[in-house]
């Protein structure tokens, strides 16, 4: 076969990039809601909730995203639960993001000084008021730089949805390569597109980090 790289290929890649951004946004929204619940469960007053959420976090953090994706995409239909691809990809990403981001947010909540809880208690605020009026506004400030940094991880992790046939940027590259058979330049272009999306976010995260004075050292998913 072979052939030349034309405008329609570029358009196809553009559509793939758009899906990458859209899938990332969906993942961040759904994962964010889940992450908030995970963070609250992990610091809950009830021991059973703390332990149960801790076990779930350990299980998800010990499993590769690719296996979670395969489990929901191939596994659920095999036992008679039909799942459309978009739902499988979205739900797996949400679970994965919710757990990792939830741990980040829990750390941010726990980084708010103990005295703030005590002061709020002295003002006779209820537990919910303490959380939403005193602790969370400060925790949001602490959590912002690592959360922006984590968006880069989300964007990169959506590339794995290509393994279950979801046509985002990485998959679009594979499809074009199947017709042009010029893998190296095509994947350089794909990598450059990812870089163009992720690098500004990385920079922003580092700027925010420098300004807030918090510079946590932590592992990052490749």
């Amino acid at each position, binding site marked *: 076969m072979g052939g030349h790289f034309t405008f329609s290929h570029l358009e196809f890649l553009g559509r793939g990039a758009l899906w990458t951004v859209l899938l990332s946004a969906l993942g961040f929204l759904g994962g964010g809601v889940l992450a908030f619940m995970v963070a609250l469960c992990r610091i809950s007053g009830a021991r059973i909730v703390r332990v149960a959420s801790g076990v779930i976090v350990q299980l998800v953090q010990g499993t*590769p995203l690719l296996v979670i994706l395969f489990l929901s995409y191939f*596994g659920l239909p095999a036992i*008679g639960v039909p799942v459309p691809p978009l739902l499988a990809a979205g739900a797996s990403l949400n679970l994965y993001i919710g757990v990792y981001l939830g741990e980040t947010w829990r750390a941010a909540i726990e980084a708010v000084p103990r005295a703030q809880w005590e002061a709020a208690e002295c003002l006779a605020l209820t537990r919910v008021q303490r959380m939403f009026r005193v602790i969370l506004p400060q925790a949001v400030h602490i959590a912002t730089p690592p959360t922006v940094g984590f968006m880069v991880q989300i964007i990169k992790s959506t590339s794995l949805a290509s393994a279950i046939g979801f046509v985002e940027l990485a998959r679009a590259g594979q499809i074009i390569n199947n017709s042009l058979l010029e893998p190296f330049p095509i994947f350089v272009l794909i990598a450059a597109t990812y870089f163009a999306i992720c690098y500004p976010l990385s920079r922003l995260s580092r700027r925010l980090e420098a300004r807030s004075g918090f510079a946590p*050292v932590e592992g990052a998913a490749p």
Partner: protein
Amino acid sequence: MGITLDFGAVLARWPMLLGGAWMTLELAAVATLLGFAIGVVCAVGRRGSVHWVARICGVYIELVRNTPFLVQIFLVYFGLSSLGLSLPAVTVAIAALCINVGAYSAEIVRAGLDSVARGQVEAGETLGLSRLQVYRHIIFPPAVERVWPALTSQFVLLMLASSVCSQISAEELTAAANFIQSDTYRAFETYIIVAVMYVVLSLLLRAAFWALGQVLFVRRRRLGTAI
């Protein structure tokens, strides 16, 4: 509609599962060692006074950290073959993993190196130690000890990321799972078992790094003293 699970059909393929898990561990071990070495070199290079070396290390780190591993592994795979080198998938997988984890561990090691107080380095220089000796004896041990937990997480994430190597048909655990599920039609059971195996592997890896940390660091310090 009843759901019937049959783990037996999958577990009967245990030699393949164990073989895959072993390959995953091998990939992770080699990539951890080489990647850590790359990370240390880059971290030192980036902090160094030679401008162009620092620049190159910085560009490498940013390029790797802002692109997905899946694309990196395709680039290495097709890049090497367009140079006329057709290497086995496992070699390509190890090369891609090393390049990837090198950049991540460089950033972690750099944070550790930066955390060593300036006065310690000056004290070492006053004693007439060479630059290499200062790094080897004064900066390096406390720096690595401080970022050991972050390095541990990174290397566990690396082991999990090696699942992506199944996409270029390196025969590790996820690739074994893909083969077994297409052979037995027991996709759900296969991936559940493999997920449990990954959880066990990551717990083992964490335990190993904790034990290594105990041997490498703690015994040299009296209790209650700061790092």
